[in-house]
């Protein structure tokens, strides 16, 4: 099918580039998240690999034109493997002075800079803290500046729609998007389709936005605004069906899939909190799958209800972020004693305390590992990329049911909101999650353990003959009766720990990307995967360097071969978005003199930060 836009003639041939990073930035009200998502979706459909980084303010809608009100969306799309949203944008679209001010320092020297000159009024300049207009003081000389009268041009294009100016002005993001589509030789039809669906019931808006998109494209073409335009060829991805997926969506889907494959009803007890709320939102749309979503009065009730649901035979899950986990720890302790399945998803954010709620961080590992009173070991998993959230959510459910235990799954704000193309998995290929509720009263003891996994029977209320009582007091081995016997207590503490340790038998051995032994092993976990992977791929190798990358998805218990793996390298580097938490674990556990690369700025590593550290270590060694 030949589309409208493909018919638009192109006057000049396009130049081919391997990868491009674009950042859209504007006021919270300017629709930058939408614009970025549209561009992403078009790039994905075209077959690029990509990664995105939305970045929005903590306020719902800070005052227009101010610095805290700036909202940004960055996407890297490429003809080859992409694992980060890009360190430094090649292109910056700045809808107002505040957006320029906040984002300019990140733009690549000589990068393309598109600004909406109509918003550079004295008032807006002042709000952004500019004394003089940067468009006039030569401060932008180092960039390829394209001043565009976005507001005026959009108004002109939509004049005949008869809409009021405020509504028309809201369409200027589509004008900008149209320009970007021209610059990167992209068809409009993907976005046109989206507009059609979205505004099916508001024909005036449908027309206006479509017009704006086309006008932007036409303007870029006609005004010969850019010297060249570019083509980023499709990436060589595995054949298959693809979609874009954010971490939160993937996580929600992983949970639904686990519910389906286990035959258990998925029960989510949750309380809204940034950046985890979207998982609640997603799952509340899956009622036809029998999923129950319970928005509780607080986090304590949320996890309590999830645990109660597990006791009654559902797959109990709770989703939250660090401050919410703080409130749940007492109940998680109860779950370790009750030995019931429970999945706790922590979508980490910047802290401590309320911290930086919309920013990313991975500083809740200690909390997951150690944040309970007394000895209450809990398995801890972490997803590495947005789409990996699917697999790890599924894994968390599998382990919870398999070992009758609460399980932590760690994600973070970057994974939650970032997106990447995802080859849609065939769920049937995933191992089924086997559940067998105890039915037989003969020989039933609530804490009699399965010899291999040490897990206890799941005997749900409603099963005749299995009436029994559980609780948070120490239990007698096997019978589960309350026991204050000293020896029994020690045995039970050790049994509970051993049960978790044995989970290591059911998880994959740690794999290494890159050299399988040598000078340096970079050990990461969670969302740093993209940056480390990119650094490994793009770093210029020096003679004889041998570097590996081990990315841990299982943080407790650790993979059985990890000690061996660590021993194969002279040096160990652990980059983390915290002050060195995994680092601490590796040092304590294996007595390796690992060193940390730590960043706590509410944003992910750039690949260059990783590369610089690797070089520093290897140079230090060499010198």
């Amino acid at each position, binding site marked *: 099918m030949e589309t409208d836009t493909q018919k638009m003639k192109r006057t000049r041939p396009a130049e081919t580039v391997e990868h491009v990073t674009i950042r859209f930035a504007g006021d919270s009200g300017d629709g930058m998240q939408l614009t970025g998502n549209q561009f992403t979706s078009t790039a994905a459909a075209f*077959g690029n690999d990509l990664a995105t980084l939305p970045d929005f303010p903590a306020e719902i809608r800070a005052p227009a034109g101010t610095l805290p009100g700036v909202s940004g969306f960055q996407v890297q799309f490429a003809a080859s493997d992409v694992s980060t949203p890009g360190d430094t944008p090649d292109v910056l679209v700045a809808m107002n002075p505040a957006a320029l001010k906040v984002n300019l320092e990140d733009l690549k020297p000589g990068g393309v800079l598109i600004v909406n000159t109509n918003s550079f009024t004295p008032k807006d300049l002042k709000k952004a803290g500019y004394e003089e207009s940067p468009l006039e003081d030569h401060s932008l000389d180092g960039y390829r500046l394209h001043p565009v009268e976005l507001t005026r041009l959009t108004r002109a294009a939509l004049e005949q729609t008869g809409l009021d100016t405020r509504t028309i002005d809201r369409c200027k993001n589509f004008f900008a998007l149209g320009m970007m589509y021209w610059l990167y030789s992209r068809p409009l039809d993907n976005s046109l389709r989206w507009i059609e669906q979205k505004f099916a019931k508001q024909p005036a808006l449908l027309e206006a936005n479509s017009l704006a998109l086309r006008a932007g494209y036409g303007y870029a073409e006609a005004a010969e605004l850019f010297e060249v335009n570019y083509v980023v060829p499709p990436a060589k991805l595995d054949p298959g069906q693809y*979609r874009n997926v954010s971490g939160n969506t993937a996580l929600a889907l992983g949970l639904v899939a686990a519910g389906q494959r286990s035959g258990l009803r998925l029960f989510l007890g949750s309380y809204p909190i940034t950046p985890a709320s979207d998982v609640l939102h997603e799952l509340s749309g899956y009622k036809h799958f029998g999923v129950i979503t319970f928005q509780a009065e607080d986090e304590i009730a949320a996890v309590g209800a999830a645990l109660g649901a597990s006791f009654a035979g559902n797959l109990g899950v709770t989703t939250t972020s660090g401050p919410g986990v703080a409130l749940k720890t007492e109940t998680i302790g109860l779950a370790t004693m009750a030995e019931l399945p429970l999945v706790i998803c922590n979508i980490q954010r910047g802290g401590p305390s309320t911290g930086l709620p919309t920013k990313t961080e991975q500083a809740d590992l200690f909390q997951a590992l150690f944040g309970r009173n007394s000895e209450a070991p809990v398995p801890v998993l972490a997803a590495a990329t947005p789409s990996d959230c699917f697999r790890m959510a599924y894994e968390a459910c599998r382990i919870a049911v398999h070992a009758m235990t609460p399980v932590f799954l760690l994600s973070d704000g970057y994974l939650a909101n970032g997106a990447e193309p995802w080859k849609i998995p065939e769920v049937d290929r995933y191992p089924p999650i086997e559940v067998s509720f105890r039915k037989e009263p003969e020989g039933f003891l609530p804490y009699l353990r399965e010899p291999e996994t040490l897990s206890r029977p799941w005997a749900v209320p409603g099963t005749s003959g299995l009436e029994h009582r559980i609780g948070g007091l120490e239990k007698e081995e096997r019978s589960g009766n309350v026991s204050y016997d000293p020896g029994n207590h020690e045995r039970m503490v050790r049994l509970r720990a051993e049960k978790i340790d044995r989970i290591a038998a059911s998880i994959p051995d740690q794999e290494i990307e890159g050299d399988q032994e040598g000078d340096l092993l970079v050990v990461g976990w969670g969302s740093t995967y993209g940056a480390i992977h990119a650094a490994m791929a793009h770093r210029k190798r020096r003679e004889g360097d041998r570097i590996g990358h081990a990315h841990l998805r299982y943080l407790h218990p650790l993979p059985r071969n990890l000690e061996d793996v660590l021993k194969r390298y002279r040096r160990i580097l652990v980059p983390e978005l915290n002050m060195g938490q995994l680092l601490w674990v590796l040092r304590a556990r294996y007595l390796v003199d690992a060193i940390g690369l730590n960043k706590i700025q509410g944003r992910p590593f750039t690949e260059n930060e990783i590369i610089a550290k690797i070089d520093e270590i290897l140079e230090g060694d060499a010198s």
Partner: protein
Amino acid sequence: MSTAASERGMTKKDFQSDQEVRWCPGCGDYAILNAVQQVFPQLGIPRERFVIVSGIGCSSRFPYYMNTFGFHTIHGRAPAVATGIKLANPDLSVWIATGDGDALSIGGNHLIHALRRNIDIKILMFNNRIYGLTKGQYSPTSEQFKKTKSTPFGSLDRPFEPISLALGAGATFVARSVDVIGPHLREVLKRAAAHRGSAFIEIFQNCNIFNDGAFDTWVDRKVRDDRLLPLEHGEPLQYGKERKFGIVRGDCELDVVELDGDGDEKNLLRHDAKREDPAFAFELAHFGEDPTHPMPIGIFRDVEYPSFDGLVHRQLDEVRAAKGEPSIQKALSAGEIWQVS
């Protein structure tokens, strides 16, 4: 396979667990346990469908002594756990045993939210106006200026009136009974079981170790008849050994009158537990606070309203009916997808 309890006629014994009961000798909890064990076999519910959930406290040991499913959770959180159990399987009959500290102090929020949602769980609050298990600190129902372990010079908090709090939260079934008045307690328990929705029952319970005789002014055998006002839906508000006293609506409040037997009972207010407006029940709730008034016991309010668990499962069914058989594979492929070949 053993015969399911449900297939035999059940008795009190069927509800006794093999665990030794460990309350202080003379504790009011024994009487409550006894009443529950007597009532459960009469409810027509198979034993395996009962779940008793508790928090922490002397009263919260309750599940161990009942031969049903039981979960002795953590302090104050029983309503949260019970909510999950009931939502997961609405066929279960879910009961909570809790204390005045467990329910109203640390657990106050879960309690009022459970009541507002009207989830079908039955909450038995053992009110001994003291923290028993931690050995005698004052609780949110202790009278002001009480000397306790933690208030050697007298407590300064005003107490909650639990019935009022429950009504303020929108509870659909609210009642009060007494540990040692077995017939009354059993009757209230049965009515609570029959109610479809949350039921909140305050039970006056004597802690003979740390707060002995807390309710004596009302429940002591010698004064009981003259000091308790039994509420019966549709019946006049009348009490006293010879039913000589009654309640009438005064100028702005409820007044006690002495009946002269000349048929003046017909002027008495009639109890109405089914009134949608909770104001009347609320008025009665405070009535007992005045020491010159009798203490109302029985069911203050009992109105029908769809239960939360019922609504949740109806919604699941409706969405399923509208959207049809779900497929996880289809769900994964929702939205914009593309093919790479």
